[in-house]
């Protein structure tokens, strides 16, 4: 028998970045408890910040009438995050390439780039108000 450690989370959050930051720290702490090494958690933490805080700030525009749905399913080897906001959505393909020399000093696109770097999969729904992130821990890298 294999003892499989896991941690799941499923909550609707208010459009409040302070609450969002608290939830992110909670997710990070619990993933470390089930065995995710600190080295790998940097990228997970960055991605959580960009996904959840952006949903609150840019998706819901901090509208107190709107909420952000956060789902986490994590095991010692796999991380899955789904963040859904109640905003108008956006087109990720329209985000400028922030690594292009002419865009380096722009304020947008960097979060998306970092999520794509640290995660195995970054998937937006058609409306652009739901984001799914997936990452599998590579044992030989720990």
């Amino acid at each position, binding site marked *: 028998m294999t003892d499989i450690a896991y941690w799941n989370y499923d909550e609707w959050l208010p459009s409040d*970045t302070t609450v969002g930051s608290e939830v992110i720290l909670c997710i990070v702490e619990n993933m470390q408890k089930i065995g995710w090494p600190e080295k790998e958690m940097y990228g997970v933490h960055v991605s959580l*910040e960009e996904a959840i805080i952006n949903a609150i700030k840019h998706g819901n525009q901090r509208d107190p009438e709107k909420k952000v749905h956060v789902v986490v399913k994590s095991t010692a080897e796999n991380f899955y995050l789904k963040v859904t906001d109640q905003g108008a959505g956006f087109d990720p393909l329209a985000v400028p390439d922030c690594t292009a020399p002419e865009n380096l000093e722009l304020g947008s696109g960097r979060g998306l780039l970092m999520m794509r770097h640290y995660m195995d999969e970054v998937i937006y729904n058609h409306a652009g108000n739901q984001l799914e992130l997936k990452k599998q821990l590579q044992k030989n890298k720990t």
Partner: protein
Amino acid sequence: MSDFKCIDLQNKNDVTVVKLRDDKVTDAERIATLGEELMTLSQPDGGRVVINMGNVRFLSSSAINKLIVLERRLSSGGGNLKLSNLRPEVEEVFNITQLHSVFDIRADENDAVGAFDS
């Protein structure tokens, strides 16, 4: 004494050396405050600023944007911003985002301060 909440300042050879107090620069309100405090460092004639990032274990793209705004403000006035003491994981973020070509990143604070006169 300053009233800054997010940064500590020191003067070394006419260079303003800034240390960020937070090890995790993530909270949206703190980042907004950090941005306001950093903006006070830019002078009409630019300014020479080093930000010692040694305390920083984590920073989000919003926090990076504040550094970019400061760099742009200083440069437009003929000044200069250098970053120092980046932890490897933080430096990786600058590499991923190609921002190592925007910022002058030095290994340590003394190197960064000395580079203004070299």
